[in-house]
């Protein structure tokens, strides 16, 4: 069988871990549901059902979008954003195509997803949303650069060009880069304390706030995917990936840390976030230079 199908195809079809990626969208939506529930319970509220993100997604897919001339292009861009976020999981452990691509390709996909987010906002953006759009753009520049630096710091340190490592416990060995990665994760998932827009009060909303219907469903699923991706990424760096069970438990632990940070912190103002990111950027550069030297 192995000879007939070829080694890669055989691994693809018969490695049970490979099917992990097929479930990644439901897992991400479940994570989002658990996140909301956990936050509610910590805040002394009952909170929504854990399955609420599924209901939300189904409802959004059923809604009709306004019949504008941009309708199809908005749907296409948001779908591409979903696709790029989904494809990020291909590089993680326990996935179909993991470890066959170089990390440079991964960074490119990551930055492409950011650009698609900005484009989706740019297309759908009415006049008063440009404030949030500008902020998103600023943050994209910072987080893209810091993420790339942090990533190459990890790669330089571990001398591995893939994520897969059974002893990649870098949490204490690279504390600054680990901290920077946490910051980027919170920033990219738009969670407190790094909520760049004033979305609670809707004075300044993010670039994609005017999406609706199917496009919004793609966007919301993408956001859940992005959060789950960062949880898995940090888990694979900090705890390694020995087996699926250990990986899952460690992921839940990291996920709980994420939720806890959201619950106990208030939001920074935009200028405070930028000042903070300048410090984070400087730290990440210093650590990379230190490792190279």
């Amino acid at each position, binding site marked *: 069988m192995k000879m007939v199908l070829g080694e890669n195809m055989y691994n693809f079809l018969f490695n049970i871990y490979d099917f992990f990626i097929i479930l990644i969208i439901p897992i991400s939506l479940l994570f989002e549901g658990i996140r909301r529930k956990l936050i509610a319970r910590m805040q*002394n509220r009952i909170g929504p059902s854990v399955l609420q993100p599924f209901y939300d997604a189904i409802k959004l897919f059923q809604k009709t979008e306004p019949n504008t001339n941009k309708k199809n292009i908005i749907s296409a861009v948001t779908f591409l954003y979903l696709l790029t976020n989904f494809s990020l999981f291909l590089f993680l452990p326990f996935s179909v195509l993991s470890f066959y691509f170089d990390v440079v390709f991964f960074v490119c996909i990551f930055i492409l997803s950011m650009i698609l987010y900005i484009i989706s906002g740019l297309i759908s953006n009415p006049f008063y949303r440009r404030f949030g759009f500008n902020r998103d753009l600023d943050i994209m520049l910072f987080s893209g650069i810091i993420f790339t630096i942090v990533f190459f710091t990890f790669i330089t340190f571990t001398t591995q060009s893939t994520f897969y490592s059974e002893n990649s416990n870098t949490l204490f060995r690279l504390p600054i880069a680990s901290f920077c990665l946490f910051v980027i994760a919170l920033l990219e998932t738009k969670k407190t304390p790094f909520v760049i827009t004033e979305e*609670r009060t809707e*004075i300044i909303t993010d670039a994609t706030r005017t999406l609706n219907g199917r496009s919004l469903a793609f966007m919301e699923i993408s956001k859940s995917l992005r959060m789950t991706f960062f949880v898995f990424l940090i888990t694979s760096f900090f705890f390694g990936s020995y087996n699926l069970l250990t990986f899952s438990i460690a992921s839940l632990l990291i996920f709980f840390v994420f939720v806890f940070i959201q619950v106990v912190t208030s939001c920074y103002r935009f200028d405070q976030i930028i000042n903070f990111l300048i410090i984070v950027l400087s730290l990440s550069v210093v650590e990379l230079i230190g490792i190279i030297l």
Partner: protein
Amino acid sequence: MHDLKLPIGPQHPAVDEPSSLIVTIENNRIINSNLKLGYAHIGIEKLMEGKTIEQGLHIVDHICGICSVAHPSCYTRAIEKMINYKPTMRVQYIRTLTSELARMQSHIFWAGFMLHEIGLETMLAYFLRDREFVLETLEKLTGNRIHFAIHKIRTVRNDIDEDDIQFIKKNIAKLGKNILNSMKIIGTDKNIKKRLVGIGIIPKRMAKKYSLIGPVARASGISIDVRKDDPYEAYNELDFDIITETDGDAYARMLVRMREILESIKIVKQIIENIPKEPIPTLPPLFIEEGMEAASVEAPRGENFHLIKIKNKKIDRARIRTPTFNFMSIFNKLLEGNYVDDVPVILTSLDPCYSCLERVIVIKDKKIEVLNEDGFRRKYV
């Protein structure tokens, strides 16, 4: 980004009540702002005209959900001054008790929303939980959770018994413990300080210039409080301090209100220890032929002022000035130069209440048309 005009409102999540704020922004900072009010106009003053004194009390009970003790308290004070009547001590103690409980729930509610504005939803949830202790107490005392309606002219609607006192003691003890914990968090959390310290600063001189009152003035170092300056109800029998801070920023306003909750707890404890044991008088409705009197009380947001004119046993004219009237004069000034992200923080730190503020001010148009209640309803409601 140059000179972007950003409209906030009239219906907007950033403002709890309808108002239209247009801010001009340059480089994330506000260079100009324009606040328009008039969207929560409910015509209270006009509605009161032609009503009997008891009916007027019922209307002022419903001016505001948060100040629903302060308004009837001020109104009854004005009427009782008019007839030169001093209620019994027990009545005065019960009124003071409800006033302080209402102040506590207002401040707790405000503190929660203030922290919600900076993204700390958890504290909002905890403050709402704490507020429930006060609301349960008020519900036990008055039978209501929002419009308490405890006041009657010359007396009160409900008496309190030993069970009520035990219930108050239990709830106040729990509340005091939770408020101290919350104060500890507010005092130590760096993120909260980063968002509130130095925001919306009102120096003492400016506070005097704009005639600010209440916790906003006290946060700027002005020791002003009707409870001390012109004591009413049982306040001159009770021991409490006027809380002041000197910084005049949003954080100082937060500290003043939090410390005032503790002062209110102190007052409530004194009331339940010292409340005189005597019957509550049951009196018939009051009719006054003619008279005019003004009174003020310390509402949770500051000095509340009522001017009542009676003619032929009916209210001829009512003038109500709420603390928000004073605050909103400085609002545009405070926004200038601040980041646009701080608009909700500054607005909430003043604790405005438009439903209190907006009333019938113009009753005649250019054709000199005087509107009665029905006419007003047809035209404006």
